[in-house]
């Protein structure tokens, strides 16, 4: 999952981005409103965390411009503006959630998780494909009842594939959702990760393979007979 954080306070931005990264999200962060708009329009984010009072361009304008551009990225406003009229204005502008500073990091993460689930149409926090189960909140993967220890960089890919189970997901899509803007698009980082992931979710040699390659298209996670 890839998240955009636009927050002008250096400390809060670092903490929000760091917490999200620790939870397995790829995070792009900026302090400037106009930079935030450019990034949101350029990349395909799963969630955007926006402050409202920003230098360059305020969060409400960013959201308005994103919606006008047809970008449906779920937006969480993270702001010190605590009046009811501010919340109403934010939600009416098209925000999906509103969190007032000061906030608990756990709550912020839970809200971002919820927005991600909602984006993929999942209401349950546990998503299953065959005997593979992913707990989105606990960030825990089990197969045949056994907990799998998967490195966080692979966990995000598996999470994305499970949330898109049955659909073909291209390499570009994985790159844009899992890796931040620092990753080179020419690298074979996705292929290497998928290879490792297949091994990581293999409990024993009788396990059915769940991640399949569609030549020239990408990968699909599904149960096949």
């Amino acid at each position, binding site marked *: 999952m890839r998240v955009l954080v636009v927050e*002008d*306070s*250096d*400390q*809060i931005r*670092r*903490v*929000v981005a*760091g*917490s999200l990264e*620790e939870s397995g999200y790829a995070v792009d962060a900026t*302090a400037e*409103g106009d930079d935030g708009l450019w990034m949101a329009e350029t990349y395909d984010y799963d969630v955007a965390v926006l402050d409202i*009072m*920003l*230098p*360059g361009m*305020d969060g409400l304008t960013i959201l308005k411009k994103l919606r006008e551009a047809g970008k449906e990225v779920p937006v969480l406003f993270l702001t*010190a*503006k*605590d*009046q009811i009229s*501010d919340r109403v204005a934010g939600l009416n502008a098209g925000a999906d959630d509103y969190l*007032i*500073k*000061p*906030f*608990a*990091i756990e709550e912020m993460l839970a809200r971002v998780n919820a927005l991600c689930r909602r984006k993929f149409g999942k209401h349950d926090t546990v998503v299953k494909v065959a005997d593979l189960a992913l707990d989105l909140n606990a960030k825990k993967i089990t197969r045949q009842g056994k907990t799998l220890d998967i490195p966080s960089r692979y966990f995000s890919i598996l999470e994305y594939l499970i949330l898109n189970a049955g659909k073909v997901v291209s390499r570009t899509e994985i790159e844009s959702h899992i890796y931040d803007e620092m990753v080179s698009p020419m690298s074979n980082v996705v292929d290497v990760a998928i290879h490792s992931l297949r091994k990581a979710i293999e409990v024993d040699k009788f396990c059915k393979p769940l991640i399949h390659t569609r030549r020239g298209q990408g990968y699909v996670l599904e149960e096949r007979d």
Partner: protein
Amino acid sequence: MRSIHRHLIFWLLSCLLVLCLVAIISIIAAFRRSLVAEFDRSLIPQLNNAQLILRPGPLGFNSEINRSPDVYIQAWDSDTQNTLYKSENLGKRKLPFREVNNHSTEHWDFTFENGEQIRLAATGILTFTGRGEDLAGNAVVVAVAKDRSSLESAVRRLLFSAGAIGLLGSLFTAAIAVWVLRKGLKPLDHLGEKVDRIDSGTLADRLETGGMPAELLPFANRINELLDRLEAAFVREREFSSDLSHELRTPIAEIRSIAEFAMMYPNRAEESDYQNIFETTERLTAIVEAQLALSRIESSHELEGHEQMDLEEFIPVIWKSYSNAAEEKSIRSNLTFEGPRHLKTHPGILTTILENLFSNAVEYTPESGSITFELIPGDSDDIFRISNTAPNLEDADLDKLFNRLWRKQESRSDANHFGLGLSLARACAKALGFRLIPKLDSGELSITLSLDSPN
């Protein structure tokens, strides 16, 4: 609760009722008097007839002359009150005697023992007996009477009719009065309803004055003016709350986030976190102290420790602390002292004013801009003026310039300032009996310290 509507209706109806009653009573009394007079006039011919009866003729009393059967007649010797004559229809009953002067007539009512009500007319006459030297005059009182039940019946009918007409008239008049009052007071009710609907959520609404009666117009206009001021105050209050919320919540959020993040992910904690927490705490402390200073200044009534000050010497000392910062931004500064200016005031508070004005000017003047300080000599009401380049300010900003926590930069990202400096300067100026007058001219902001009330 007193109601003009009820008050007017009560008094109007009461007055109408009294007027109606007085009118009815007067009419009834006039009619009764007229009926009684008519009745009395009808008795006069009978009285004249009775006098003829009592004239002694050759055969004694002329008792057969034109006598009406429903008329009672009785005559008395005026001196002895002995009955001289009594008509047969009286039977054993007697008419009451009353002394009446000759040729005068008196009328009065009387009720027989059987309940029959009569009205009498009596006059005094002289009768003569004998001839020649034997002629003797005798004073006689003659009275005639008639049953007055017809009169009483007519009066009762009149009373009933007048009462009924009066009652209906009163009700009709009352209904009209109520209707007219309601119609007349409708604009007042309308105004009351509109005013009643005013609350914090409808402060933007104004009373419609089109078509309003001239008597209510001053009230409506005054209420609208009050609403203007109230709305502006609410907006200021809301902006202040919002700004204060941001100024306090953001640093608290920073401290909390840094601490929570370090606890959750200790490996990601940095040495600079302590420095950040320290700086943020310093900022919070500065906000709280500035707010407290502002409250103290605003609530202070009399400041002690005023001194005679030479501003020509005093001001450059204060400016010195800001001159380096101005030079770093390549700001051209020009302090003009055309003459001495002495002022008896509080040096500490004046220092706060100057520090905040200089700090504000240096902070918000763009690089390569200019700051001009002008000390106005003599006894002018204006004491000094500080001007600086302010290309981003607009005329509308002048109204908010001294509002607490107001900042031109809506993002409020600059952590070094929080918009209390000019508020504090204004509060200090007010406490010393001065005022700060802002003016914007061709991208240059000037703030003049002037005596609030000259002399």
